[in-house]
C-alpha cells in the first residue's frame, strides 16, 4: 500500500471525498513552490500533486501553461521536481508527480520511477501516456512500488475503460469534461456519468479533476467521487496576487473552503 492508497482508504472510512491539490514545481518560484506546499498541507489537503513543467502541455489550458512557462524560464528541471516532491511527502501528506511522458523517457524510465520512490512519492500521473505505450513504465512502477495513475475521459468507451483501469494504481483520474485544464463555471454532467461507468469496471477510488474551483463544485463532486482534484484555481490566485504573502493567504483560504466542500457532499 502506498501513502496514497492509505489516505484514500481513510477518506472512505470517514465517508467523504479526498482533496487533492496540484502545484507545478518551481512555481511561483523554487522557494515559493515549497511554501505553497506547506500552506496547502496546513489548510488540510489530503494529497499533493507536483507538476513537472513541460514545454508542450497539450492537456493544459492557459493558466497552467503560464505557470509552466514561468517555472521553465527559471530553469526548473527534474531536480526541482524531486525536491518539491520530497518536501511534500516529508510533511506526511501523500504526494505524487504529474508529468507528460517525454521528461520521464529523457530522464530514464526505470531511474525516474526509482527517484519518485526515493523522494517519498506514492505515484505518477501521466496524462499523455497510453496503456499501449506503457510496458516499460508499468514494469518500473511495479518494481518501485509506486502507483501508475492514468487519466480517462468522458469519450472513453466501456471496454477501453476496463483495460485502462486494470493497469491503474492508486486512483483513477477521471477528466470531468472533454477539454483541457482550467477553471469552469460549472462541472459538466459528463463527470457523473463517467464515474458511474468506471464503478462498473473497477473497485479503485475515482478522483475527478478539470475545472474545479469552488466549495460548491467540490461538494457536488464529493457526492459521488472519491476525490476532487484542484489545480488551475490555486495557480490563478498565485498569478493574480500582488505579492507572495497575499498569494499564499488566498491559496490557504481556498484550500480550507474546498476541504469543507469535500466533507459536505454526502
Amino acid at each position: 500500500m502506498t501513502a496514497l492508497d492509505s489516505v484514500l482508504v481513510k477518506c472512505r472510512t470517514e465517508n467523504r471525498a479526498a482533496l487533492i491539490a496540484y502545484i507545478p514545481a518551481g512555481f511561483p518560484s523554487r522557494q515559493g513552490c515549497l511554501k505553497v506546499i506547506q500552506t496547502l498541507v496546513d489548510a488540510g489537503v489530503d494529497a499533493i500533486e507536483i507538476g513537472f513543467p513541460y514545454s508542450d502541455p497539450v492537456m493544459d489550458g492557459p493558466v497552467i501553461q503560464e505557470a509552466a512557462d514561468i517555472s521553465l524560464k527559471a530553469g526548473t528541471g527534474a531536480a526541482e521536481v524531486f525536491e518539491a516532491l520530497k518536501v511534500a511527502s516529508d510533511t506526511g501528506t501523500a504526494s505524487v508527480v504529474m508529468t507528460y511522458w517525454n521528461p520521464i523517457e529523457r530522464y530514464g524510465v526505470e531511474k525516474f520511477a526509482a527517484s519518485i520512490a526515493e523522494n517519498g512519492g506514492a505515484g505518477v500521473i501521466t496524462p499523455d501516456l497510453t496503456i499501449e505505450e506503457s510496458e516499460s513504465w508499468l514494469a518500473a512502477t511495479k518494481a518501485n512500488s509506486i502507483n501508475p495513475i492514468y487519466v480517462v475521459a468522458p469519450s472513453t468507451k466501456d471496454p477501453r475503460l476496463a483495460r485502462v483501469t486494470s493497469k491503474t494504481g492508486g486512483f483513477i483520474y477521471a477528466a470531468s469534461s472533454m477539454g483541457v485544464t482550467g477553471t469552469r463555471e460549472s462541472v459538466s454532467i459528463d463527470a457523473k456519468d463517467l464515474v458511474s461507468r468506471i464503478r462498473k469496471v473497477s473497485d479503485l477510488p475515482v478522483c475527478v479533476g478539470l475545472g474545479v474551483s469552488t466549495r460548491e463544485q467540490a461538494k457536488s463532486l464529493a457526492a459521488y467521487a472519491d476525490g476532487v482534484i484542484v489545480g488551475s484555481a490555486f495557480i490563478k490566485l498565485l498569478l493574480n496576487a500582488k505579492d507572495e504573502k497575499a498569494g499564499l493567504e488566498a491559496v490557504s483560504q481556498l484550500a480550507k473552503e474546498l476541504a469543507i466542500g469535500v466533507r459536505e457532499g454526502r
Partner: protein
Amino acid sequence: MESFDVLGHFGQYGGRFVPEALIEALDELEAVHNQTQKDPEFLAELAELHRTYTGRPSIITEAKRFSEHAGGARIFLKREDLNHTGSHKINNVLGQALLTKRMGKKRIIAETGAGQHGVAAATAAALMGLKCVVYMGEEDTRRQSLNVARMKLLGAEVVAVTSGSKTLKDAINEAMRDWVTNVHDTHYMLGTVAGPHPFPTMVRDFHKVIGEESRVQMLEITGRLPDAVLACVGGGSNAIGIFNAFIPDENVRLIGLEAGGDGVETGRHAATITGGTPGVLHGTRSYVLQDKNGQTVESHSISAGLDYPGVGPEHAYLHDVGRAEYRAINDDAAMNAFALLSKTEGIIPAIETAHALAGALIIGNELGPKANLLINLSGRGDKDVQTAAQYFGIPL
C-alpha cells in the same frame, strides 16, 4: 514493405502519446482510413478530384542548365509546385477532407507554420463546405501575412497563437487543445507525417501518389530508376510521399535534406534527425530537438515550413535502419540553390524545396555525370518573395 505494426509503430518510433480523450477519435479515424483505402469508390473520387482540381499527374521537368552546377548529373524535378495552391500539401488535405465528410464531421482545424498547409486546408474546406479554423503562431502570422490574408479570403478563421514560442510547435499544441475539446464534431487536419497514429501512415498514404507517378515517369523518360531521390524534410510529408514507392528498390538512394539553419554545430537549426535525439513530441516517438530535461528546444530556419523541432516517425525508422540518409543544408546553401534554380530554369522554388535543390548540387557532384537524380519540387516560391528579397537585398 509495410514497416509499422498494428499500434502504428515504425520500429521503436511512432505510436500514440495522447490524452485518453483523443483515443476514440483516433480509433475512428484509423478505421475510416483503413476502410476507404480499400474502397474503390473513395479512391476513384479522390483520383478524380486530383485530375480535375489539383492538376495531377504533376509533370517532370529535366533541369538541364541547373544540372551543369551539379557535376553534370541529370536532374529531374517532380513538379508538385504546379499543383493547385502551389505545393504538395493539397494531396493530403483533399484526402482528409473526404474522410472528414465520411465521418460526418462539419468542422476542421489545422496548424500552419509558413501558411502553406493552412491555405491548402482552407481551400479543401471551401471546396467541401466545411468550417475551418487555422492555428498559426503569432510570430508566423507576422512573417507570413500574405498567407493569413489568403486563408481569410478562402473563408477560414485564423487564430494567432500566443503561447510558448509562438511558432508552429505551439500552433500544433493549440490545435490539439481545440481537438480535445471539440472532437465530437471536429477533425484535426494535421499537415505532415507526424503526430499520433494513424496520422503518419494516413498522411503518407495521401502523398504516396507523388512517388508512384514519378517512378513510372522516370522509367518512361530515362528507361531506368533514378540513382537517388531527394526531398526536403520538415515534418517529412513531401519526402515520404516521393520516397514511398522507391523503398523496395534498394539500389535507389533516398536522401532527405533537413534545415541546417545557421549550421547544426551552432545549435540554431531545425535538423531534427541530424542534430536531435529520440523522444516524444506531439503524440509520437521520433527524433526531437530537446534538452536534458526533455523540454522541446526551439528550432531555427530561414524556411518557416521546415522550422519544426520534430520529424515524422517513419523517417526516424528509415534513418536508423539505413534505408534513407539525412543531411543538413544551411540557410545560405539553400538560398544559393533558390537563386540558381530561378536563374537557370525560370522556376522560383519554395525556400523549403531549395534545401533539396542544394542537396542535389552536392549529391550530383558526388555521383558524377552518369547519375540521374529525382528531386521533389515540393512547392513554388511566390510566398517567399519577401524573405528572398530581404535576403538578397532587393528593395521592395
